[in-house]
């Protein structure tokens, strides 16, 4: 099927009324969670995952993807008006966005964030459409050893980029791999660590784990703080940036798009890092770096474009290799598996409707977001004023219903609450949960690839370094693991713009 036929197929699917509706619901919820501090895309996608069980897989993926890129749009609103990032990828937008608002330029800041996000989001999708099919073809040549090495590399990159000491992130990944082992052994059918609990024979469910780790724990942390929000009271006008604003922003937008897209493709990269890198690049290339932090429009345009382009890039490893690039993609991988699909090189062949339908829906979603974010800005500001003591019981209720409705089981609810408590302690002791989630999703795939590779090589572990692609991937992982041990290089890792959770 050639490219244009694929595009037409995609639009035929994305333009179906029910898919349009789910796309709209996704971007609307995404904007909402982006706007509301304390609730990020990971938590929102986990909360809404069970509600997609009753719809078609295409509609489900369209909606869940919409939440992800919608949150990137919404996050900028809170950063600019409240100086609190709505989600982690909008942290740097606070620096100049809030200063612009204080100078009475909240309108252009919000406007350029929305337009930049739109341009970058759309260009990111174009990149995804062109790169994914050839990469999927190449991935068909991968055998179990290459898959194993690729997954190890993905986990290593994520742990390398995690905030804090690397041993903590590696511990979380190892714990995630262990959780992925719970349940029936897929090769022999023997139960492992099930403690005679029927619900555990299918393994520890992804949904209760992510809802607990990201949803419940976040609420428990938020309720113990007094969340005072001071919204910058100003009349928001001139949402359409002037020609001068455009002149200053167009190159940061384009540079942010390229940075975001390629960092998004890397497993372990993503929206948070790309926004930081974009900000650093803009400051470096600017003729007036001293203006950054005082309300420079480039400091809003670049990072906001980068975090949106990253969402398009992040879909590439998921859809072509079946490897999630970050925690959000790990949940999407889980969602696709729940819906009976196996993301990877065969997805394009076996489910072209899903692939092209989801990708083209992102174009439509970006247009919807532009409409939602600019004229409806007043509505989002009103929502920002909903007090947290009224909001949090609803979030908890959503988690409870979501966990219960998976299998109508109280055990799953209890697992979620327990993981919520664990997630709360993780945050207290500064452990990042993203490597755990990625390892939990990859665990069964990684185990199968490892065991198949060893069967293939008659027990020779050198198979991972004697096959060229696998050897390169292993070498990258090895380098990343020893990098922090070398004193000079270790300091460089500490100086990297690391992710404070993609949640």
């Amino acid at each position, binding site marked *: 099927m050639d490219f244009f036929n694929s595009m037409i197929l995609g639009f035929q699917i994305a333009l179906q009324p029910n898919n349009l509706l789910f796309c709209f619901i996704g971007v609307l919820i995404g904007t909402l969670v982006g706007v509301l501090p304390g609730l990020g895309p990971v938590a929102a996608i986990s909360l809404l995952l069970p509600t997609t069980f009753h719809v078609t897989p295409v509609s489900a993926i369209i909606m869940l993807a919409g939440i992800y890129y919608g949150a990137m749009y919404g996050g900028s609103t809170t950063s600019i008006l409240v100086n609190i990032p709505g989600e982690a990828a909008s942290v740097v937008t606070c620096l100049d966005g809030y200063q612009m608002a204080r100078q009475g330029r909240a309108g252009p800041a919000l406007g350029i964030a929305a337009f930049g996000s739109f341009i970058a989001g759309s260009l990111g999708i174009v990149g995804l459409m062109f790169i994914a099919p050839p990469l999927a073809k190449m991935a068909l040549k991968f055998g179990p050893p290459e898959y194993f090495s690729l997954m190890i590399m993905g986990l290593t990159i994520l742990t390398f980029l995690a905030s804090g000491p690397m041993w903590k992130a590696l511990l979380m990944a*190892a714990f995630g791999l*262990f959780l992925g082992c719970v349940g029936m052994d897929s090769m022999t059918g023997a139960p492992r660590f099930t403690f005679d609990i029927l619900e555990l024979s299918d393994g520890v469910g992804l949904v209760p784990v992510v809802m607990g780790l990201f949803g419940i724990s976040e609420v*428990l942390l938020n309720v113990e703080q007094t969340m005072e929000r001071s919204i910058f009271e100003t009349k928001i006008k001139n949402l359409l940036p002037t020609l001068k604003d455009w002149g200053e922003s167009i190159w940061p937008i384009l540079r942010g798009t390229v940075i975001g897209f390629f960092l998004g493709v890397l497993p372990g990269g993503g929206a948070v890092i790309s926004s930081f890198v974009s900000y650093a690049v803009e400051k470096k290339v600017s003729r007036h770096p001293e203006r950054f932090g005082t309300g420079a429009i480039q400091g809003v345009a670049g990072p906001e474009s980068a975090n949106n382009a990253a969402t398009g890039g992040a879909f590439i490893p998921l859809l072509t290799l079946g490897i999630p690039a970050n925690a959000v993609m790990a949940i999407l991988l889980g969602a696709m598996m729940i819906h009976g699909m196996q993301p990877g090189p065969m997805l394009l062949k076996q489910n072209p409707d899903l692939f092209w339908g989801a990708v083209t829906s992102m174009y439509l979603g970006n247009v919807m977001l532009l409409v939602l974010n600019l004229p409806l800005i007043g509505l989002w500001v009103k929502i920002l004023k909903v007090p947290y*003591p*009224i909001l949090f019981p609803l979030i908890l209720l959503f988690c409870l*219903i979501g966990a*219960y409705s998976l299998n*109508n089981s109280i055990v799953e609810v209890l697992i979620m609450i327990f993981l919520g408590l664990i997630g709360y302690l993780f945050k207290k002791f500064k452990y990042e949960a993203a490597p755990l989630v990625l390892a939990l999703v990859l665990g069964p795939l990684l185990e199968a690839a490892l065991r198949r590779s060893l069967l293939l090589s008659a*027990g020779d572990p050198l198979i991972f370094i004697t096959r060229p692609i696998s050897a390169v991937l292993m070498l990258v992982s090895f380098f990343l693991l020893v990098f922090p041990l070398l004193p000079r290089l270790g300091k460089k890792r500490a100086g990297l713009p690391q992710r404070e959770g993609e949640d």
Partner: protein
Amino acid sequence: MFRINNDQTSALLWFALGSIVAIVSLRYSLGTLDSPGTGFMPFLAGLAISLFSMIGLVHSTLKLKKGEGWKPVMKGLTWKKSLIALGALFAYALLLKPLGFFLCTALFIGFLLRAVQPQSWLIVAAGAILTAIGAYGIFEIWLQAQLPKGPWGF
């Protein structure tokens, strides 16, 4: 005086967990390298947890020597609120089947609205009833999730 910091505490707990996982995995068959058994992967995961926790223990001990001691994790926080919320969650899980979705949800929302940061009784009552009705409408009627029914049939 005996001193220990946060990372040492957590590393020791992880080491215990990793060791337990590795030991229990031995009960399942480890198999051989050319045919790994059921316990092979969890055994590796347990070993990895133990190994990384040992690295963490050394790292945090070095930090302790440089003066990084115990940092209170609850200082300045109203942790009782999170305890109340956690208790409410467990209570909801245990009472959902006996009381049914509607009543349990109304009580849960009402309790949290009143107990964590007290709202007026009007907001508590309206919030509890409207949320229960809304959630019932969305999940039970629209999405047809099979939520537990109490003795009253809803």
